[in-house]
């Protein structure tokens, strides 16, 4: 349970040579991200009407394999949708994600979540114009006495015991942009899980207060966006609901001014 009890932590603009950078740690993962862009694209890669988005994922140990290529593909197609690529024709936006700490039993699908978050943070730190931000969540469904139980941000053990595993990513407008579900489930179950993922990721669509109560403690990403007095309020921009997105964006913008100085947001 250690992976879910510690909250998400983010460190922004700490790499001096990159245009934007962020380190994000959550659920056993620590990923360093860097963005360079818009920069000149190689002649054979450049697109006449939009920017090329290039994502490179490096694993914690060894060189990248087929899984990393798959992850890169997912991230690339997702990020291309939220970056305003048409603003930078013939150029390149390069996103490099280096996994530094990964849990022992890692599943690709859970890594998508942390990688997504890191990438969005990094893009914001580089002040690359985006149409929306992303929030993602992993949900495992286990069968218990005929009924399905949903576990948000499951541990490796819980994933192993689960019947199905789902990853959802939503834009800050509440649209489903990415989903990866595997295991065995029915469409009804999938819709229920999607609904709870939406509640978890887009708190503004439902009552904020009720949502805070029925979720497991610690695992609730939504809490981190709200500034709380009794806890360390870690910075959690990807969880932008419409209501608080402007506040976080403002915070990010002010951070952009002192780019280069490492900054760990605690206590709002």
């Amino acid at each position, binding site marked *: 349970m250690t992976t879910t009890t510690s909250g998400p932590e983010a460190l922004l603009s700490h790499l001096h040579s990159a245009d934007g950078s962020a380190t994000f740690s959550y659920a056993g993962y620590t990923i360093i991200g860097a963005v360079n862009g818009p920069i000149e694209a190689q002649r054979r890669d450049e697109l006449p009407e939009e920017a090329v988005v290039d994502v490179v994922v490096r694993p914690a140990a060894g060189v990248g394999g087929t899984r990393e290529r798959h992850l890169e593909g997912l991230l690339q197609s997702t990020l291309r949708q939220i970056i305003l690529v048409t603003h930078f024709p013939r150029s390149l936006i390069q996103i490099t994600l280096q996994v530094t700490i990964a849990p022992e039993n890692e599943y690709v699908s859970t890594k998508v979540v942390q990688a997504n978050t890191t990438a969005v943070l990094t893009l914001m730190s580089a002040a690359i114009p985006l149409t929306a931000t992303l929030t993602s969540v992993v949900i495992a469904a286990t069968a218990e006495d005929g009924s399905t139980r949903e576990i948000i941000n499951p541990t490796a053990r819980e994933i192993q015991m689960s019947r199905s595993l789902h990853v959802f990513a939503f834009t800050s407008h509440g649209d489903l*942009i990415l989903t990866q579900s595997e295991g065995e489930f029915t469409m009804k179950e999938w819709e229920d899980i999607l609904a709870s993922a939406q509640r978890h990721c887009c708190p503004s669509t439902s009552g904020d207060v009720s949502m805070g109560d029925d979720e497991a403690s610690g695992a609730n990403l939504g809490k981190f966006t709200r500034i709380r007095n009794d806890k360390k309020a870690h910075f959690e921009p990807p969880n932008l609901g419409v209501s608080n997105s402007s506040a976080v964006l403002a915070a990010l913008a002010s951070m952009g001014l002192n780019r280069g100085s490492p900054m760990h947001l605690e206590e709002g």
Partner: protein
Amino acid sequence: MATPKSLTLSSTTFAKLSPHPYLLANLQPTDSSTTPTRTNGRQPSQTRLPYINTSSLSHAHGSAVVRNGDTTVICGVRGETILTSAIPNYRAPSDDPSSSLDEARDYDLLVPNIELATGCAPNFLPGVPPTTLAQTLSTRVYSLLHSSKLVDVSRLRIYPEEVGEKNIGGDDDKKMDEAEEIDEYAAVAEEKAVKAYWVLYIDVLFISFDGNPFDTAWTAILAALRDTKLPLAYWDADREMVLCKRSQKAAAPLSLRGLPVACTGAVFTEREKQKKGSGRYWVLVDPDRLEEGLCDETVTVVVDKLSGSTKVLGISKHGGTVVGPELMKEMVITAESRWDQVRAAIE
């Protein structure tokens, strides 16, 4: 068809020059008497009929050729043995359901590989290192093989010879009982310990490529695995190696759980850069190469209807925000009819 005299282009030239307006014009004809179709003549949710031919490779343990329109794939399955003593951190499998051991995944007993660099399409150069698409497909196939638990791992275990003989032999009932008793007690004992495993190398080669690689590759893998017969292998304690029975009769087919079928759709939007709700869109099921190049968002649904009710074994969607819960439901219905098609072709 009335074409203005000033600029006359043949439809193939139009398709090459501006593919997006070409496909759009086909789907949205100005003349209301023409039915909207895709450039390949299909309706948006119409798939291509698959053709399957099995056992065409003589040296593989199982093989299948699948043709889906102009996408043709050949898949061969070859079994090789690996000794448990050669597996690092080997743990004996137990019947305990709470055991976290997943033999197929932990010992890598299923090794799929997808080869696109065969000159199957102009955009894949032959003889180059695996492209991103090939690697992505391999990963997706690998994770679906494991998450659907398609192959029954117990058939891949290789035991010492004696156990097998005891199970088969036993002339009178008393002896049978005795043997069964021993079996029961010996279940945990070393005698019945797994000595080796079959590793299935699943190789998929694209002969020609015209879109929808994942569905076709998966169908080929499914057909090839159904066709696979492994020779009866046993552990010879004296020679300390795995031996196979020579006779073909002793070869046993794999046992597969269910019949998962993948169905992919690509979302074609009216405008090239379109946000949700701002224009028309079509979900083109079983897209061809031209359509794949014009669509950002793709959705893949894996369903299995073998047990009667529809089980969903995988949903994957990326690259856009058009497909929500409603469209996903429609996609599952399309996948169900696709399942019937593939089943008819496979059997």
